């Protein structure tokens, strides 16, 4: 247990049900906004990263729907809805 468990593996323990469309979008034209970099630090699921073009991108797998990125970056940069009913993460323990 003391060795670090890979974050993807950890997220793999959770139950996710895919939605038709991913529920978070980086708004068009904001991909290189430096304020988006905050999301890279705060996302507990590590979904945000910078691609080779220097744009912040979000991975669509493993969102815990906590809303931290929305609060850190604001709705000026992110379009953020909850996933449709009965989709997304389903915590068993919580």
């Amino acid at each position, binding site marked *: 247990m003391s060795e670090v468990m890979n974050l993807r593996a950890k997220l793999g323990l959770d139950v996710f049900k895919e939605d038709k469309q991913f529920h978070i979008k980086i708004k068009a034209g904001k991909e290189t906004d430096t304020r988006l970099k905050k999301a890279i630090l705060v996302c507990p699921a590590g979904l945000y990263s910078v691609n080779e073009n220097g744009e912040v991108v979000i991975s669509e797998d493993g969102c815990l729907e906590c809303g931290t990125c929305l609060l850190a970056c604001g709705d000026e940069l992110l379009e953020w809805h*909850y996933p449709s009913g009965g989709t*997304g993460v389903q915590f068993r323990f919580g």
Partner: protein
Amino acid sequence: MAEEAAEQFDAIIVGAGMAGLAAAYTLAGAGLEVLVLERGDYPGAKNVTGGRIYVNPIREMFPDLWKKAPLERYIAHEEVCLMDRERSVTVRYDGLELNAEPYQSYSILRGKFDKWLAKQAERKGAMLVNKSRVDDLIIDNGKVKGVMAGGEELRANVVIACDGVLSFVAQKAGLRKPALSKNFAVGFKEIIELDRGILEDRFNLEGSEGAARLFMGDVTAGKFGGGFIYTNQDSLSLGIVVGIDALTEESPAIKAPELLDKFKQRPEIARLIKDGTTVEYSAHVIPEGGLKAMGKLYGDGILAAGDAAGLSMNIGVTVRGMEYAMASGYYAAKTVIQAKEKNDYSAAALSAYETLLNHSFVLTDFKNFQESLETLEYPPLFKHYPELIANIMKDLYAVPAGPKARLFPTIKKYMTISEIWSMVQVGRRMMKI
């Protein structure tokens, strides 16, 4: 007349968490027609707690619930641990009062508890629909008349927004203040399963006793926040809560998941979770802004309760939300019951909700602790003091090869005039909470 024949609920509750289910249970218990809409597969599917609930303030509101409630362990042992990088100092509190019934707090898992509470509300007559996301409010002439969910129009005399910390429902109703990141923290945690006997041995637990351990200092790399471990029946809730603004600070720039990994690798922690199996990883935002960040609690045809109303509080030794959620759900229900008697669901009639909260522990606590966030968000508390105390301990306990230094000079070495002066300042700060 035809319109009135259409289904009209007394109340539609958005979100089957602590607030929504407490409201549904109370309303249905009084014979009102209640619909609860939950976006998850089941109540609890989207809900996360750090891990403990304090029962005393809400015991009498739900007298029939507690005996059978699926709570984990009653907390009989409290610890606070100050962490420096290579050492830590722990204060442990045990007491007969913590071991006396009725117990004041319990560890809790929301997946289990919320499902059970929903069943109790359904038994009273509440209708629960899972997998249903509320997309919009129906607003006529500024009055909330119902919700839109899955393309369906659902009408009610009152909508109770219990949709959690991000509450898009309260936002659409114009109740919320703009959300500032400084007023929110994020918690992320693992559930780590452990053999029951091993867990009880490691945490010194007898029977249904449980332990709560809080960690300050290096656990958040000196950022505003802390770590926690709560013992459940046969698992641990282990996680970190840290201010969102603090997490975005560049010095040190550290990603949230890395903080948790480092925490688990600390020797003090690694031995507690050894051979445990992580079975879930979850995260949730916590409203910590208190009274100053709170929006309106009611409007025409709408009430907000629980995290949706910003009713959660961090005062350092305790981080609480679930009691405020259940109590506000209860008072929201009482308000709707009164409103139905008068058939008046205007904002003026629903303002009784705020009066009830004002006269209860809920808003009394929020008034008393309104300075707590700004007081506690003081960097030395999370870096300098844990280090200072740990270093003093190191020197006090050290026995070198030669003669040992006298105790008073050992401590005095750290107590420079500027250090003492800054402690006086901290003391003054703390007087606000």
